[in-house]
């Protein structure tokens, strides 16, 4: 049986002009809807704006930003724009630092969510003949139910295995002839390790052909390792629980950026400090406005994720914008001598040197009279009794860092174990000892 390449050809390949018209129409509807929520009612009053002010997509700039803190402050129902009796589900974050966030859905919201995830899965080759095993946590974690309904919408036979009990996961994969698995990347790696311990070769002993990985930041190298291990393609899923969860953006078979569905969302990339739009192609904070949601529309939601829009058309034929692999969180940004620097920029350079370990430390300090200063310490993996090699390496790292961050840091190679931190804690990568005025 032959299928279309697209789950929804009309929307996925809609000409940009037409897509923008659809966006404006949906934005206007969204703005009229959102003021029914106490948070936006108050916000609009404070700013002296009304839904009628939105006459073009450029008028988006007039709308307020929304942050996670707003969701916490207006916990639990302050951003819900429909009567609760019209809501059929909520998802909530863990709320380790203060109130959790709550996201409400009407039945239509859930339908549209399922459509979005189905579109993503179809894009990476999932078809009704497939057996889809969802090895992500269910319950409040949106990747469970989010993928469940999306996979059912495609028409696949779904195996809601949830996370954990790896031996049982592997038994399901073998016994049910699972062809597609969704898991967070670290769990996909875990499944592979246990397969190896069991003497199972995923290439020969299973029917696996597609992996979907997401909900956890991972590098291109990590993805490639997973692909090599399983001998199948692994596609990157980008979700945000405040938007709905998975289905926001997903990689297409080109594996060059994630398509973000512009009939659901209006995307902006902003400078997280000035809040002004970033120049085209530049990295900045991803800001999303939902335009296809009833219960909880969000205007200009600051995701804190750093990415950029990829230029040009995608050969896959989809007209929706593509976001680049995430570069970290805007909360991690360093401002040194007026230059914005993200630790991930430094990490990326360091990882290119096979002589270095993955442990590094960025220290910012004030040294009179030069002012603020950055030191990058990084551990050497191997030392071959050659001081010239150490010097040469230091020079080359310094040169490449300067090219990337436009500031010359002091690079210091240190022995193994100098920067190591305890296993259970996330490594400290940035130490700011600057004098603040």
């Amino acid at each position, binding site marked *: 049986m032959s299928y279309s390449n697209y789950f929804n050809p009309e929307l996925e390949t809609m000409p940009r002009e037409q897509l923008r018209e659809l966006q404006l129409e949906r934005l206007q509807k969204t703005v009229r809807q959102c003021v029914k929520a106490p948070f936006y009612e108050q916000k609009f009053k404070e700013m002296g704006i009304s839904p009628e002010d939105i006459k073009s997509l450029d008028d988006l700039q007039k709308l307020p930003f929304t942050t996670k803190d707003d969701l916490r402050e207006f916990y639990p129902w302050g951003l819900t724009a429909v009567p609760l009796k019209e809501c059929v589900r909520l998802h909530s974050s863990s709320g380790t630092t203060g109130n959790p966030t709550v996201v409400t859905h009407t039945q239509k919201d859930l339908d549209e969510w399922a459509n979005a995830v189905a579109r993503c899965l179809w894009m990476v080759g999932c078809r009704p003949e497939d057996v889809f095993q969802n090895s992500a946590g269910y319950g409040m974690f949106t990747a469970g139910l989010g993928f469940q309904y999306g996979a059912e919408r495609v028409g696949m036979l779904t195996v809601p295995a949830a996370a954990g009990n790896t031996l049982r996961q592997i038994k399901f994969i073998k016994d049910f002839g699972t062809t597609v698995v969704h898991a967070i990347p670290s769990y996909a790696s875990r499944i592979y390790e246990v397969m190896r311990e069991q003497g199972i070769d995923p290439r020969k002993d299973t029917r696996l052909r597609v992996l979907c990985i997401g909900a956890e930041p991972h590098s291109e190298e990590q993805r490639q390792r997973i692909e090599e291990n399983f001998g199948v393609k692994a596609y990157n899923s980008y979700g945000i629980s405040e938007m709905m969860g998975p289905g926001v953006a997903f990689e297409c078979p080109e594996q060059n950026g994630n398509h973000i569905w512009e009939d659901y969302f209006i995307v902006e990339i902003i400078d997280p400090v000035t809040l002004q739009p970033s120049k085209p192609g530049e990295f900045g904070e991803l800001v999303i406005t939902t335009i296809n949601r009833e219960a909880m529309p969000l205007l200009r939601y600051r995701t804190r994720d750093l990415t950029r829009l990829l230029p040009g058309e995608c050969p896959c034929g989809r007209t929706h914008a593509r976001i680049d692999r995430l570069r970290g969180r805007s909360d991690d940004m360093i401002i040194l001598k007026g230059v914005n620097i993200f630790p991930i920029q430094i990490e990326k350079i360091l990882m290119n040197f096979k002589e270095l370990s993955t442990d590094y430390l960025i220290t910012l300090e004030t040294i009179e009279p030069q002012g603020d200063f950055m030191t990058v310490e990084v551990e*050497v993996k191997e030392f071959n*009794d050659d001081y010239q090699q*150490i010097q040469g390496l230091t020079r080359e790292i310094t040169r490449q860092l300067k090219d990337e961050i436009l500031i010359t840091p002091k690079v210091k190679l240190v022995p*193994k*174990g100098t920067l190591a931190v305890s296993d259970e804690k996330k490594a400290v990568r940035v130490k700011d000892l600057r004098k603040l005025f």
Partner: protein
Amino acid sequence: MKQLSIFLEDKSGTIFRVLNLLKGGGIQIIASTVADTMDNAIYRIICDNPDKAYLILSDAGMTVNLTEVNVIELDDEPGRAAEALAPLTEKGVNIAYLYSFLLNGKGVLVYKVR
């Protein structure tokens, strides 16, 4: 001859840590030298059991290398070192580092070339 070469942080206590680890393993040090490079230090050691010492230090997580170095044995008399190096210099050999010590009444010249 095998020499231990340890890459150390330039701060108090790092050399002491090496010495303590070697003491714990019953290693006898014959000669040692510290090069104070720009931001770190390189500690080079000749000892009675370099293979064992290497294992002790690398197991302790140290950045250590077991290096094969050139050795010239000399009579303990003035001028022997100059004579020993003359042929190398004629060949244009560039010496990266060099140190010497006395062992069993003989002079020992340890060096590594670039």
